[in-house]
């Protein structure tokens, strides 16, 4: 999920404040499809990512493109409005109660010596790595991927060379949205969804992405890992209810001393 945000910000340079809300859309979609088709959410991952891709692409083309050169606060307002609409439509359609899905492995765990590991999370993590690898390969090895990276590195140059930047931006946003879609499907295997959980995830995505490095994919993964460990350690060593403070503390340190993130490149 953080990957999606990294991709979006790294290339299109738009801060997607509706990120978490888009993910809850994906989660609800997973819920509905699971109910109708009874397919495992990790399998549903693919069609849901596709749907979110289209959604993201359209969103970018229709609403966001005109905003690229506008000041940050305008972009921010736009996405806040979108987030507000998404959350409340979900409230109206799905109601406020938490809804979840149960798969065969929802409660399984593996025992590795003294460690007990949650099975569902392992599967989801595996799926996440696969998606990340696919994304990485896309950007590295395909022509389209390289064009997008070119756009990110040098907007004017890309246009001079003849790349259809608007289309590529929309494509990128779509890709970011697809990541979010995949994340949503994976997350449904692990937690329940309510309309209200979106904003917390948006914040989390930002924390992870900035810590790891905007525009850097390994960075996003590393960031996720780092934040997870920090929170867990903070929870164990101090009082668990304050564990988010440690994540934010880390964020502040990163922002001050290495704003491009741990694995990011300095912005040109």
């Amino acid at each position: 999920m953080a990957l999606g945000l990294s991709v979006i910000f790294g290339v299109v340079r738009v801060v997607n404040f509706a990120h978490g809300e888009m993910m809850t859309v994906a989660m609800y979609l997973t819920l509905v499809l699971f109910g109708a088709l009874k397919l495992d959410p990790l399998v549903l991952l693919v069609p849901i990512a596709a749907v979110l891709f289209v959604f993201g692409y359209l969103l970018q083309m229709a609403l966001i493109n005109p905003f690229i050169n506008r000041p940050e606060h305008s972009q921010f307002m736009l996405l806040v409005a979108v987030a507000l609409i998404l959350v409340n439509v979900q409230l109206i359609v799905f109601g406020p109660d938490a809804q979840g899905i149960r798969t065969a492995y929802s409660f399984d765990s593996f025992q590795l010596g003294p460690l007990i590991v949650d099975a569902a999370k392992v599967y989801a993590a595996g799926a996440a790595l696969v998606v990340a690898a696919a994304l990485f390969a896309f950007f590295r090895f395909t022509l389209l991927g390289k064009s997008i990276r070119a756009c990110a590195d040098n907007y004017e140059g890309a246009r001079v060379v003849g790349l259809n930047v608007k289309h590529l931006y929309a494509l990128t946003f779509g890709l970011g949205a697809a990541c979010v879609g995949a994340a949503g499907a994976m997350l449904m295997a692990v937690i329940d969804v309510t309309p209200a959980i979106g904003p917390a995830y948006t914040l989390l995505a930002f924390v992870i992405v900035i810590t790891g490095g905007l525009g850097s994919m390994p960075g996003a993964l590393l960031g996720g890992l780092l934040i997870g460990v920090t929170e867990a350690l903070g929870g164990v060593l101090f009082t668990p209810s304050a564990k988010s403070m440690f994540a934010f503390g880390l964020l502040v340190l990163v922002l001050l001393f290495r704003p491009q993130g741990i694995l990011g490149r300095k912005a040109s």
Partner: protein
Amino acid sequence: MKILEGVPRRGLAMLAALLALLLVFPFFASGYLLAIGFLILYFAYVGQAWNIMMGFAGQLSLGHSLYVGLGAYAAAALYVHFGLSPWIGLLASIGTCALAGAVIGFLAFRFGVAGVYFAILTIAFAEFARIGFDHFAWVRGSSGLFLPVANYTENDLWNLRGSPRMFYYLMLGLTAGAFVLCHALLRSRMGYYWLAIRESPEAAQALGVNIFRYKMYAVVLSAAMTSLAGVVFAFYYNNLFPEQIFHISRSIELILGPIIGGIGTLVGPLVGALLLTGLAEGMGELLLALGVDVPGVKQVFYGICLLVVVIFLPHGVWPPLARKLKLDASGK
């Protein structure tokens, strides 16, 4: 009067009429409208304070609820524990927030954190405060700080215990004061430095303007002004919960006004607050009249309206409105 120079007579007349209207408003408004009036003024004031940091110094702060909360808790805690009047307590509020603003400003500017990164830094600090205050026993942490309520019949201005009407006038005073202050600042030398820093930092620096110092002034002033809103909030609602007052949704709420109204303009925050609160209540009324009782519908329409305004009026509502009212020169 020197302070009024540069304002066209049309503008002055409209302001005077507006002020008159606001002054007599409580006398023929129901309790409901008075509550709405208070909210509009509150958001106008806080929006104006935020505007200083954003519109004047160009720093997007998405964690302004930090200052509201700190200001509120400082004055409220002193009142609850020591019976100290909020007029004295507010000195502590201002001090705390000025300090907080200074710290954030210092960290940000010295380390070159700008734009989106600055915004996220402010969010981090607000969240830090939210979780921190949840564990802060002296202010009762997450169980909430309740101010003892004495009576509602007499207005005790010294202890800020009284009727909604008293709070309305208090807020009106604050908002008017902020308005005048900002106007004066804009016309002062500092105002021009801010304009320079906002429009072209390199040029300003080349001309010898100490960017760091003036940005700090803006941040600290904004924080200090916001703290006063927190003080009023605490005594008006009589209870504080860290989860609610430091929450990011509050930060977002209070910047909607100035963004919709027009960043960097003087009247923007007021117009924005009026429009947004009016819109929210109006939507509620409309839905009620249509017999729709589905929760969430109002927010969807509200979001759509926001979307429309943001797309079609990128500089806010005030600039085109000012043009219509022929107040162009005094748009600021």
